[in-house]
């Protein structure tokens, strides 16, 4: 059993709890669309839980998250109740946006989740704006923006990184490199081996490349970058190496993967790694089991609530097009 623990038992159990809950919730999402209870699309973070969890724990109340369509994990990691997430996937009234946004646009302002964006690139620029506001008003919150490897090849990535640096904005850009865009390997369409890390220097930023499947490493890196941003040190760009266990979306069986690749990464499953880690720090099987069971209960309760939830009333169709709540484009 290792001593001198820089992270500490509470934090570690929190990192474990979040990873487990994300894992269980994503698995449930998968089951639900096999049961045809999730219409539309859905993008799981199975295998990438350590990143959402590591940042979720490192972020403080008031900090802002900007996510992608693959944002269930990052939303849950900010403390959003599962029924809000699963309910939105199921397009029910109980969902975070009562079914109006759908799985790709999860938003919970009260938890600092400032939206999930489904058109690649834009939200990196939008995150700059949130950070600019904090800088201008002297607010102390930090903005964290999550995106994938494929996103580094679109123009908005370049504009956002340059902009954040020259204005020294309190924003952290987190690239989850899971090796693929939808079906195409990132290596086939990118001029450098590490799509984010190898480009940091183009913005005068240090190269940060970490193991995204080790929640401790993610947590430490997140803390550092967030602290830097909070204290006026400006933005960071972090590339986290990871892998998605499932397909890109519900529609994707993942046939394009070379044989053995998934198996290799299963060895590096973040949950597996973290269970081992907890053992090393003296956490017992029983302690873990308690958290595992609590997580499953949450999933079951959330599922029940969602299944019981009606779909939203029809009046919502034309609500909130404008900030006055309505949709009137004429008098």
């Amino acid at each position: 059993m290792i001593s001198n623990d820089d992270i500490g038992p509470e934090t570690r159990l929190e990192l474990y709890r979040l990873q487990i809950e994300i894992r269980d919730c994503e698995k449930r999402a998968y089951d639900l669309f096999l049961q045809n209870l999730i219409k539309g699309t859905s993008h799981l973070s199975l295998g990438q839980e350590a990143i959402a969890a590591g940042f979720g724990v490192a972020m403080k109340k008031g900090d802002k998250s900007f996510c992608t369509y693959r944002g269930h994990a990052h939303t849950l990691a900010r403390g959003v109740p599962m029924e809000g997430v699963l309910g939105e996937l199921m397009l029910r009234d109980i969902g975070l946006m009562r079914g109006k946004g759908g799985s790709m646009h999860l938003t919970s302002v009260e938890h600092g989740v400032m939206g999930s964006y489904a058109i690649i690139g834009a939200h990196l620029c939008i995150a700059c704006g949130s950070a600019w506001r904090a800088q201008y008003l002297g607010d102390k919150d930090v903005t964290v923006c999550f995106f994938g490897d494929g996103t580094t090849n679109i123009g908005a990535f370049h504009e956002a990184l340059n902009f954040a640096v020259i204005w020294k904005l309190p924003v952290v850009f987190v690239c989850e490199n899971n090796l693929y865009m939808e079906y195409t390997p990132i290596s086939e369409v990118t001029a450098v081996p590490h799509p984010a890390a190898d480009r940091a220097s183009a913005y005068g930023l240090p190269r940060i490349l970490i193991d995204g499947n080790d929640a401790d490493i993610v947590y430490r890196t997140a803390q550092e970058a967030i602290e830097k941003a909070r204290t006026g040190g400006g933005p960071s760009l972090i590339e986290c190496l990871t892998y998605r266990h499932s397909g890109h979306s519900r529609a994707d069986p993942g046939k394009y993967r070379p044989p053995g690749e998934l198996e290799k990464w299963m060895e590096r499953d973040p949950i597996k790694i973290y269970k081992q880690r907890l053992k090393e720090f003296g956490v017992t099987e029983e302690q873990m089991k308690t958290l595992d069971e609590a997580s499953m209960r949450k999933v079951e309760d959330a599922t029940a609530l969602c299944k019981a939830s009606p779909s939203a009333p029809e009046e919502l169709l034309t609500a909130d097009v404008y900030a006055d709540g309505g949709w009137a484009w004429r008098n």
Partner: protein
Amino acid sequence: MAELSYRDAVIRGISQEMERDKNVVFLGEDIAKAGGVFKATVGLYEKFGTLRVRDTPISEQAILGAAMGAAMTGLRPIAEIMFSDFAAVCFDFIANEMPKLAYMTNGQVSCPLVIRTGNGAGVRFGAQHSQSIENWTMMIPGLKVVAPSSPVDVVGLMAAAIRDNNPVMFHEHKALYSTKGEVPDGEILDTLGTAKILRPGKDCTILALAMMVHRALDAAEILAREHGIDAEVVDVRSLVPLDTQTILASIAKTGHLFTVEENPRLLGWGAEIASIVADEAFWDLDGPIVRITTPHIPLPAADHLEDLALPNAPRIVERIVRTLNGSRG
């Protein structure tokens, strides 16, 4: 004569043209090895090889820029923009570069290319993956714009678009990919700028596009069966060039115009046609021109709300009956 899905018709149309002209090349995201996210390009990579069917990064501006530069210098590229909503990230090429090139250079350069894209709603993808942007492209001088409603039209209009010497926006409807239809064997070549009368009628003219064509036809059946109204249904097919002859002739006959549009209300494609008819066919009209569109809102993800937003047969019927009853004409 074989039954083909709309999806397979895309493959058939592209194949036909790539076979006859080696200057036809095809690029886009996940279109080659993976066969496209809508599986509408399956087999092309295997058939035409890595030099003619190329996967790209997530770089829509580079995709359209590359297509344009290649078209200017001798190739006939087909570029896929996966979802039509993404036209907004490369709109500079669609609105400012490709369509103005021939004019600005006084005809020195032309831009023979096709942008094919998955347009439209009905699949619960929400506000950023369900838009009908045919009107975004119709309003740009120098572009041509088509939106087929059936497999046979997909093949023929695809061939015509690829052979055309101008930039052509080819709107495929996401929700139609799995629909089937008869497609004759052998080469198929259709003509841009031609509308099709799918159901002749004498009491009113219904103009529709893409997925709305099927709903207009359903509505016409109900109108005939339950209301004794004999509606003429015209599949506009091509917004630019626009077949105003067929449209004006139909109105001269029926005296009543209805449009069924999936795009949101303001400046939907029917607005232009309504304005043309209210000018050139004013004295042929026996009653108001009525546009039946998606309300002027972003699209919701929830199935029941999305269904509520898009025009459907009952709503079309109700509007037409109410209008024709109200007409003193």
